[in-house]
């Protein structure tokens, strides 16, 4: 118990929580945008890998860090466009298209990494984003600008969704595409735009790993974070504010298990049980939220003009 209090009293713990949470915030916002428009995007796991790789590669080849973030966003957008083409244009199964894109993006990234660096064993490094020491806010001043970006995007996307005409169209095509079409909103165009923008965010979520949290690209570095984001969106009932809360809560438990493990040693409880905790909590959250889950009504339903 005292160990727990010691951990919670330490600012380093909260710094780690916010850092761990950043890619989850970005990824969850990305999934949220797609799903509010009615499209599930299971490509996120692979898109994060691709964003992490291309963003890092761009910086390694000499581009500035923010250009690397831009490259990662463009990579994400490109895969988003592919997903939109398959699910909106051709009305393929959103589950399968997303999984296919995850496989494709992951394989392409690993292939590209191996072609670029055939013989290296230690991954080449870059100089990542520096902490914002100039900020007079504790905990936030130990983060990089990408964390600030993620935090600012939460109210920005909430505003976009709830207060702008574009956001209204986006929500309409996710709830009732037929009605939206009747109002003169193009379902295909709106959905495509939402998927492309959301996937760009997923790319940036991946780039956070290579350009901020670490300074190199590793195999398996995304390691299920994308899937966690898909669970977090349900937990958040498709609301940006709750998405932030969920991402931070998850990161809290993740950081906590790491430190509890160090504090108590693995003699008492196997460390694997701690590692299971965040995943088990995700499932629990899904169950608890399920009863009052307000799914976008048209989620996973392909829309074909003039067909019932």
């Amino acid at each position, binding site marked *: 118990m005292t160990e727990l209090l010691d951990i919670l009293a330490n600012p380093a713990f909260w710094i780690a929580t916010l850092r761990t949470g950043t890619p989850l915030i970005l990824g969850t916002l990305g999934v949220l945008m797609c799903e509010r428009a009615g499209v*599930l995007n*299971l490509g996120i796991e692979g898109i994060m890998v691709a964003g992490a790789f291309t963003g890092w590669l761009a910086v390694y080849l000499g581009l500035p860090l923010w250009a690397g973030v831009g490259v990662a966003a463009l990579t994400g957008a490109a895969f988003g466009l592919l997903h939109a083409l*398959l699910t909106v*244009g*051709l*009305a*393929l*199964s959103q*589950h*399968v*298209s997303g*999984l*296919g*894109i995850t*496989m*494709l993006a*992951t*394989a*392409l990234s*690993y*292939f590209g990494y*191996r*072609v670029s660096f*055939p013989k290296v064993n230690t991954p080449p490094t870059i100089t990542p984003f520096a902490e914002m020491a100039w900020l007079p806010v504790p905990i936030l001043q130990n983060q990089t600008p990408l964390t600030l970006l993620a935090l600012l995007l939460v109210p920005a996307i909430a505003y976009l969704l709830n207060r702008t005409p574009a956001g209204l169209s986006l929500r309409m095509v996710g709830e009732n595409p037929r009605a939206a079409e009747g109002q003169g909103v193009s379902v*295909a165009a709106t959905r495509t735009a939402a998927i492309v923008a959301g996937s760009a965010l997923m790319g940036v979520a991946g780039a956070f790993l290579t350009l901020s949290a670490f300074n190199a690209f590793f195999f398996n570095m995304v390691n*299920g974070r994308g*899937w*966690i984001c*898909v*669970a977090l969106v*349900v937990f958040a009932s498709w609301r940006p504010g709750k998405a932030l809360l969920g991402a931070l809560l998850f990161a809290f438990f993740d950081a906590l298990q790491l430190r509890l493990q160090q504090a108590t040693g693995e003699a008492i409880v*196997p460390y*694997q*049980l701690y*590692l*299971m905790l965040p*995943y*088990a909590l*995700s*499932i629990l959250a*899904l*169950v608890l939220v*399920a*009863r009052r*889950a307000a799914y976008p009504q048209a989620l996973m339903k392909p829309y*074909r*003009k003039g*067909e019932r």
Partner: protein
Amino acid sequence: MRLEKRNRSSALALLLAPVGAAVFTLLVSGLLVLWAGAPVAQTYGLLFKGGFGSVFALSETLTRAIPLILTGLAATVAFKARLFNIGAEGQLYAGALAAVAVGGMHGAASGSGLAWSPWLLFPLMLAAAALAGAALLLGPALMKARLGVDEVVTTLLLNFIMLLFVSMMLDGPMKDPTAMGWPQSVALQGELELTKLVEQTRVHTGLLIASALAVLVWALLKFTVLGFDIRAVGANARAAAFAGVPVTRTVVLVALISGALAGLAGAIEVAGRTSYVTLDMSPGYGYTGIVIAMLAGLHPIGVLAASVFVAGVLVGADSMSRAINVPTYIADVIVAASLLSVLVATMLTQYRLRWK
């Protein structure tokens, strides 16, 4: 761009669709080969030779196909009923772990003077594996049927939990004390191992079991009441319920069958190839099974062909990569790209694209 349903699809188009998809995939992947600085034709030649070009290559391909057939069948059955089981990877590990737990009773029991006949223990071992796999999918299926929790996410998350559980077991109670500290389970006794089909190769009788199960699943879907119910639920759950199909019961049964098949994949891998459980015994067979089910158009017999194709690409890429400077990840690109292009091709046999 809009889609228009075709009144009928020509037989030629249906036949050409997968061929066209394969050609398209090879053309696109060829660009990557060029990027790697290798001659495309030679690379594909080596890949084909490495996967199918000799008795040894073919035996390696068939060995690799065995777990893929079973995970492919697991995905096929589930997807037919629109139960999106993405958890075959975890179910495979659950099956492998259960198989070793039961199979290991041989040694423990004989120590206490109670020798189990392998004729009794082997079926028991397979049953335990099937049960373990089925149990792992039961939770998500019930959550889907009763609470409406999306099974994609729950089955996916359970993969991570299961892998950690295996890691915990291999670090603790099930660790082989003679493994020099490696996290691996005690090996199965020789009598419980599946015999080899061909001398000097690794291909084992698991191939026959998996093929027989493919035929069995096909017959189940085509000729039984349950099969009809599965297809009805998959086509339209609400209409099926209205027509008196017991939807919840069907979904649960499908989950049990699908999970059992994936669990068997783990047991048969252990009994046929690895003989003990390790944390890397599956390089994602559960996920590749999804691709195989889709490539096969959710047809159990098609799963056999798709498994051999995918296994051939994976095995061939390994041997190609040793001979020439193209990373093995090209195989994963080919598999993923062929999944997407087959889906598109199939769609285009049923719908006509109108640009407007």
